[in-house]
């Protein structure tokens, strides 16, 4: 069972990163909406994961994306920030009775409404930090908010589509 989980999570990390680097790198809808699908990896790690491995994994994934984007440190910074917020947000929005053990925070387990409340603020926090660092010095507050807002919507919509298409509905892989 453990080996199966290992394969599952290595795929979960590898494939969104590859898609991000090879397909989504140059895509920006209307010049403002970017897609950071690799955040789906960080969002769908199990709720029981301890905080330190979560932070280290997010930092590593962010750094990997950074190397390809030539924005060394920016994705890593924002992704670590997201990972830091995640446990607190999970605690705040936990359903009555708490999470079941080994439950994945995905649409098939928790439902679409819960996933939206879970992912929208976290992805928005990520985008805000990322664009703040990226546009540092240009003094374009409206531009930063604009890009963050539309990138969040685009990313979450794509994350939902990916989950509906590719994530297995059965429990306990």
């Amino acid at each position, binding site marked *: 069972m453990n080996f199966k989980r290992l394969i599952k999570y290595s795929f979960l990390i590898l494939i969104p990163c590859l898609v991000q*680097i*090879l397909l989504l*790198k*140059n895509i*920006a809808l209307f*010049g403002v909406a*970017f897609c950071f699908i690799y955040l789906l990896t960080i969002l769908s790690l199990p709720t029981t994961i*301890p*905080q*330190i491995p979560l*932070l*280290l994994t997010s*930092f590593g994934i*962010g*750094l990997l994306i*950074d*190397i*390809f*984007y*030539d*924005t*060394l*440190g*920016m994705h*890593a*910074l924002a992704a*670590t*920030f997201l990972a*830091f917020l995640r446990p607190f947000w999970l605690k705040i929005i936990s359903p009555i009775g708490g999470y079941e053990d080994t439950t994945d925070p995905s649409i098939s387990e928790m439902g679409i409404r819960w996933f939206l409340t879970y992912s929208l603020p976290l992805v928005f926090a990520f985008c805000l930090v990322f664009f703040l*660092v*990226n*546009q*540092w*010095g*240009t003094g*374009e507050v409206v*531009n930063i908010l604009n890009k963050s807002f539309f990138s969040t919507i685009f990313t979450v919509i794509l994350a939902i589509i990916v989950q509906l298409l590719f994530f297995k509905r059965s429990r306990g892989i």
Partner: protein
Amino acid sequence: MLRIFQFLYSLRSFLIFILLEVLAIWLIVANNSPQGGAFFNSSTAVVGSLLNTQSVVVGFFSLAEANEALLSENAHLSEELKMLRLFPDSVQIELDSVFAATFEFKGARIISNSIRFAQNHLTLNKGINDGIKPGMGIFNAEGVVGRVKSVSANYAVAISLLNTGLLISSKIKSNNAFGSINWDGKSSRQARMLYVPRHVTALVGDTVVTSGYNAVFPEGISIGIISSVIQSGDPNYLDILVDLTTDFSKVRYVYLVENTEANEQDSLSLQSKIQDEF
């Protein structure tokens, strides 16, 4: 003492978070100065070869366009050649031998490009093995593209003109007034021309070209066309907006230019304590 350790241990995840964020900020600061020695970037072998394969696949779909661009440039060049051959017998003009040896040109293909961020970079498919060095200027038939930042054996990373950190020494072609081109991070088709004094008459429609002062680009490579001149806020300088001639969303094949005497010029200005913006 034990209490302190227990306290720190209870805060361990927060401390790790702070540590990682400081590390990330250090990476950002250390790697985003225009001339900073980049260590992990897309010129490393594995990353470069992956991007290269991707660009080969994507490039296949724009071959027709690339062909057309090459064709029009060929036509342009052969026209120029004809002009040069027009007076073969009357007078022999000796080209200045110093100038002829000053600049060296090389060709390369862009395998990765971005235009949407505030600090955009390009990756080229040539590196040290092909004679590419940090600091070389990059341009194509349309105009200036950027400047090489760091090189590995087979790949090079360049700062795009669409990078708020890059200044390019330039002048207005009609009256030789010089200034610096700097991108403001807004539209990928427009940049600003800085440090042009108010007494200069800059007109909408004037061409802006490289000035040749900074030993990176030869004089006269096209940069853009002035689209608006405003006398605003700053009491000393004009606010000039330039439409770039290079279409950064389509740039694929570029030329690199090296000034073989850049070292000499640089050390001379270093000797005389002149701080030059690049």
